[in-house]
């Protein structure tokens, strides 16, 4: 315990000696100030003493607490903490492992009565201290802002701390492994950013595939509906024709039905294709860390699907949609598809999101520990 505490205190001293740590902290303070300066009232949005009237977006449609939670969960955490502060944290911490194993520094630490695996893991955890402190302070400040400005003391906000630290730990495990292998801060930083970018691409690809699949499914549903309507109409026409003593056209051979059936087949093929691609994207994503979805867990926790709908450009309920409206057509159709994509992504279990990401991190750390334990310095 003495050793663990000493390493953590040392990590804090190392961080507080970095100018970037304080710069990030000041920037976080500014972001919170801007966050607190925004408000919502019965007329619309406010910023300091200015008012921006919005008939569809005001405290009557969106309660102030929900507004602040939405801004925190959709801008504060994923954009500021996960991206901007995340990149700054990586820049600040990428040197931790290369500096730790540098000649002249590591010999003394390795000559102490502590196992190498434990030493490396504590060093890794201490690298997360930067993010923990930054997120902790940012969340604390936002908690106060939402409490006073939104009138709701949201204890769930504090979930941002473990979630963002967890997300950062996926990336830092890559950074630690590369730093150990190359002994270079620049290489560790660049490769980690590259991995992060690759993860983002896969994530975007996955979202696109889901969007396409859901669009195709909705298209199919719509065409099946059209087919059954036309079949019904054709059947009625056939009965009417038969009643008139003429030879009826079989409903299945009705040109409109044949055309609609062809469209259904086409839509079925489309669903098959996009389902296959969505499965491939899902498979690739499964083995990679899910940075975006991990951060989105906070959104899941803070805002229900109903809450989220309040922030759509046009609040529309599915039953309001026109019967035959195609998903690709019009804003209403797009809203409906987006909702379905949201539902699919939210349906992915927390265990899948966190479990597979932690497994990735475990592999990175396992490799790093193995190398660190066996290397001669």
């Amino acid at each position, binding site marked *: 315990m003495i*050793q663990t505490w000493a390493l953590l*205190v*040392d990590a804090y001293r190392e961080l507080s000696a970095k100018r970037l740590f304080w710069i990030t902290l000041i920037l976080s303070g500014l972001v919170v100030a801007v966050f607190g300066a925004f408000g919502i009232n019965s007329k619309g949005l406010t910023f300091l003493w200015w008012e921006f009237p919005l008939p569809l977006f005001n405290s009557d449609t969106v309660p102030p607490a929900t507004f602040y939670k939405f801004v925190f969960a959709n801008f504060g955490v994923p954009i500021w903490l996960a991206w901007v502060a995340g990149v700054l944290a990586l820049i600040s911490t990428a040197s931790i492992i290369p500096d730790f194993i540098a000649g*002249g*520094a590591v010999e*003394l630490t390795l*000559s102490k009565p*502590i196992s190498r695996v434990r030493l490396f893991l504590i060093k890794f955890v201490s690298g997360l201290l930067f993010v923990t402190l930054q997120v902790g302070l940012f969340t604390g400040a936002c908690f106060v802002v939402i409490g006073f400005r939104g009138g709701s003391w949201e204890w769930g906000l504090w979930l941002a701390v473990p979630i963002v630290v967890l997300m950062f730990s996926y990336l830092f495990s890559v950074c630690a492994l590369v730093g150990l292998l190359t002994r270079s801060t620049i290489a560790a930083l660049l490769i980690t950013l590259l991995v992060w970018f690759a993860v983002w691409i896969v994530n975007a690809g996955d979202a696109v595939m889901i969007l396409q699949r859901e669009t195709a499914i909705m298209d199919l549903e719509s065409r099946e509906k059209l087919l059954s309507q036309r079949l019904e109409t054709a059947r009625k026409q056939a009965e009417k024709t038969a009643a008139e003593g003429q030879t009826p056209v079989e409903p299945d051979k009705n040109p409109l039905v044949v055309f609609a059936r062809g469209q259904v087949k086409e839509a079925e093929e489309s669903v098959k294709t996009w389902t296959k691609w969505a499965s491939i994207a899902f498979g690739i994503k499964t083995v990679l860390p899910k940075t975006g979805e991990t951060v989105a867990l906070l959104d899941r926790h803070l805002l229900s699907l109903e809450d989220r709908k309040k922030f759509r450009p046009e609040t529309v309920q599915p039953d309001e949609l026109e019967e035959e409206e195609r998903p690709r057509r019009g804003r209403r159709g797009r809203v409906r598809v987006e909702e379905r994509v949201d539902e699919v992504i939210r349906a992915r279990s927390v265990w899948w999101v966190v479990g597979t990401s932690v497994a990735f991190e475990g592999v990175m750390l396992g490799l790093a520990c193995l190398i660190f334990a066996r290397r*001669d310095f």
Partner: protein
Amino acid sequence: MQTMTPTGIETATEHSGDWAVHLTHVSKVYRGKVHALRGIDMRVKRGEVFGLLGPNGAGKSTLVKILLTVISSTRADGVMLGRPIGDKSALARVGYLPEHHRFPEYLTGAQVLDFYAAMSRVPRRQRRERSGRLLDLVGMKDWANKAVRGYSKGMRQRIGIAQALMNDPELVVLDEPTDGVDPVGRRDIRVMLQQLRDEGKTVFLNSHLLSELEMVCDRVAILVQGRVVSQGTIGELTDHRKYYEIEALAGSQPAQIEVLSNAVSGVLGPRADPGPPLVSPHPGVAVPETDIGALAGGERVFVRSGALRILTTEAAAVQPVLDALRSRGLVIRAVREYRPSLEDLFMEAVTDPTTGKALVPGAAKDGKNGGGR
């Protein structure tokens, strides 16, 4: 990878009371079949100051790093402070100052001491007590709360020595402790090493400064190309190499080899086979000498222009030679008792006896280099 054979374990039990470090068959082969250590056998007694010498690349740092688990050995039988080599638990009782140490620049001197002592599991109260005392001891009390980044090399070295003592170690391993330290600081360090010995601590010194080692070490080992070529007290290593040198003049000129040989021929016994190579009075410089035989007591006599060298520790053995020289009218200019210095021993160890040239420095690849030793 540490290999602990049954023999090694027996040794551990057998010698744990007597030896701070007892090594047998320590070897290290790096990738590419580079043999850094080739079967080191070495003993360091408890309570002594032990010096490890060797040219660059001899394997000194490799050996120290194996002891401190910084690198793994290919094979290492033996014990350190009663524990098998590679056992981390023994390290709580070891203080270490690496050669090219680099303390975190953001820490102050006092924080450096506190951090590394904590890593050795020293409780907070003891850390506080010892920190002030050791900072005072190494003359860094006034700099205790200044960041290391502002320290000179000598100051860093002083802090390094203090940190090596923070855990009140039984064994202190110091790699080039006087590197960058001014003469006053060096003297202070020597005094401190003697104090440590007086307190019963074992000091393992790795240094290039042979004269300093000679002043403080009880025992030394010379490492060349991954092997211990000699080991013992400085007395043990030098006594049998002592000799007398007689400088003689013929008139006002140094006596020639033939004159000297003829002058002493009467006191020489039958010629024996040439013995082991001798230490040159001028290390590193080839001085042509001729073995002209031995005295009645078996003491070998060598001659060069203007001087005779007699391998003996007894002054009495030299007297017949002096008499013989005087009887031939030669003038005795000087009679010197000569005892090889540690530097002489070192130079002898790193010189190829067949060629008289310095051995190739560095580790041996695939068993080559220094195979003749």
